[in-house]
């Protein structure tokens, strides 16, 4: 009798999990298509399809093929990376505040990318490499500084916030040295933007996802166990140190590649995990749902930024407006109850 109840409730939850994934994927496809169709000139789906197939369509080949397609694709992929990387840190440290954009990892990648472009004049690949190394470096520094008989989430978060502030001012300084840069380019490294997205920028993100995504997903179950606390997870057969190292390297890599391509799109890493947790519940791993939420967030925020107002805003401004109130809410709630993800 209990067995039947156990099976039926498990099947119900698995269905719900699959349904949520399907729904999110459908919404992403919808937002992606809208991004391709909408603009100063509207193009029909058949025109867009012909562009994707490689045919030359007057007007659409350039506007869709060279502007909208890379932009929407980069939006979805970078959003996926931010969501995945964010929820990984939040789960591992069991604190929704422990998101990479709060604890300095995206700030590190962003400062390094700005430095590489403005001071060193590096190419696209050089910038990505620089950003990933800096992101990892910051992750290691924050981790080591907060290590004392194990890492406590709160201590790591406070140290991370301090380091993020230092790195952000470094970015601001580097940008002030870039006299020839226009404002739009500068804003990209402060809040993140998809303006001028190209296939050349998108490719490294694709490669990062193909290489590091599977590494992270292979650790999904171990991360899922870490939610129960380090001791419980270890007692259930999780190798803590190995899991942490693999997960940190993979997540930081994804975040750094995405940041190098788009700048630090504010709060996407921070928001995606908690939103995914709200809709999925405890039924399964949050990694893929959070990635999908991230992709959807960036696509929708970019649409809002481009078309909802008289002025075009970079995507990071929109996600920042969405994320900041949630951060405040979370700080108030954590203060009250010391909550976890």
């Amino acid at each position, binding site marked *: 009798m*209990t*067995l039947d*109840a*156990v*099976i039926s*409730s*498990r099947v119900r*939850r698995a269905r719900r999990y699959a349904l949520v994934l399907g729904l999110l994927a459908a919404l992403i496809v919808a937002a992606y298509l809208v991004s391709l169709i909408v603009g100063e000139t509207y193009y029909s789906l058949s025109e867009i399809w012909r562009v994707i197939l490689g045919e030359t369509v007057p007007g659409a080949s350039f506007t869709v093929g060279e502007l909208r397609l890379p932009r929407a694709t980069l939006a979805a992929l970078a959003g996926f990376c931010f969501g995945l990387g964010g929820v990984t840190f939040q789960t591992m440290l*069991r604190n929704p505040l422990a998101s990479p954009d709060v604890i300095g990892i995206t700030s590190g990648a962003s400062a390094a990318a700005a430095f590489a472009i403005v001071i060193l004049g590096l190419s696209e690949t050089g910038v990505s490499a620089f950003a990933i190394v800096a992101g990892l470096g910051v992750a290691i520094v924050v981790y080591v500084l907060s290590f004392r*008989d194990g890492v406590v989430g709160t201590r790591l978060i406070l140290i991370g916030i301090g380091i993020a502030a230092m790195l952000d001012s470094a970015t601001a300084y580097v940008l002030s040295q870039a006299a020839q840069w226009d404002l739009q380019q500068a804003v990209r490294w402060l809040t993140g933007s998809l303006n001028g997205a190209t296939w050349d920028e998108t490719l490294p993100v694709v490669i990062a996802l193909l290489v590091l995504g599977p590494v992270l997903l*292979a650790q999904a*179950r171990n991360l*899922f*166990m870490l*939610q*129960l*606390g380090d*001791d*419980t997870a*270890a*007692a*259930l*057969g*999780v*190798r803590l140190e190995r899991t942490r190292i693999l997960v940190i390297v993979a997540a930081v890599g994804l975040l750094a590649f995405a940041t190098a391509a788009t700048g630090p799109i504010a709060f996407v890493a921070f928001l995606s995990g908690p939103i995914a*947790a709200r809709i999925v*519940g*405890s*039924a399964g791993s949050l990694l893929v749902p959070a990635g999908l939420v991230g992709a959807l967030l960036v696509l929708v925020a970019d649409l809002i930024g481009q078309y909802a107002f008289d002025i075009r805003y970079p995507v990071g401004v929109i996600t920042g407006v969405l994320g900041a109130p949630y951060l405040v809410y979370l700080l108030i709630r954590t203060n009250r109850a010391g*909550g*976890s*993800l």
Partner: protein
Amino acid sequence: MTSSHSLTVSSLSLGYGDRTVIESLDLVVPPGKITAIVGANACGKSTLLRSMSRLLAPRHGHVLLDGREVHKMPAKELARTLGLLPQSPIAPEGITVSDLVGRGRNPHQRLLSRWSHDDDLAVAAALDATHTADLADRSVDELSGGQRQRVWIAMALAQQTDVLLLDEPTTFLDVSHQVEVLDLLTDLNHDRGTTVVMVLHDLNMAARYADHLIALADGKLHAAGDPSSVLTEDCVRAVFGLDSQVITDPTSGKPLMLPLGRHHVTAP
């Protein structure tokens, strides 16, 4: 069914940083029995338990399960034989009881392997054994302390290990829930032959429920054996620095310790 796994500790030293917590400790956990570890605060009870389940690497010495060093065994293989319920496990927000219990199946699952019928059977059996089946779809956040503790034990049961270590499973529970949890562990020991090792605060509960009592003082073994031979007035003085009178519990025939404080004691 009786589990015959041997768990022994030989010349084990443990510590954190500069601090030594356990020093050259030797002990044998009797297979198929209930063992309780008692001692004063900070005497190293929890540290010992953590090391026995490979959460803390020894400085010197070994923890041996069936003659193999636990710190060298593959993590999942160990977790199929030996389970640990830590003192304060964390329930993720909103997790349901059956989800939480299901996570105890982790060591039996491989990467990408699907949930098996054995997993369902183990979860159902764990829910039944802990009388938590009717809570299965409830959120763990909503449960009372006693219910929550039973759910955590159910998770450890779903792990289906022959050896189960528990770090103060009765802390924060009122007396009726303490008895309920200890009765449950006794059932488990009798029905499945599970070897139970638990750290307990309450000496009298330990003496009543344990077949084998281990008293630690300052990181060293003070005494080990049958509760009636271990729990003596001398032992209480040496381990806790407390004067006491030990009588025979009329309800169980086990030793019962009555503390002699500075007040409210009528001269014998």
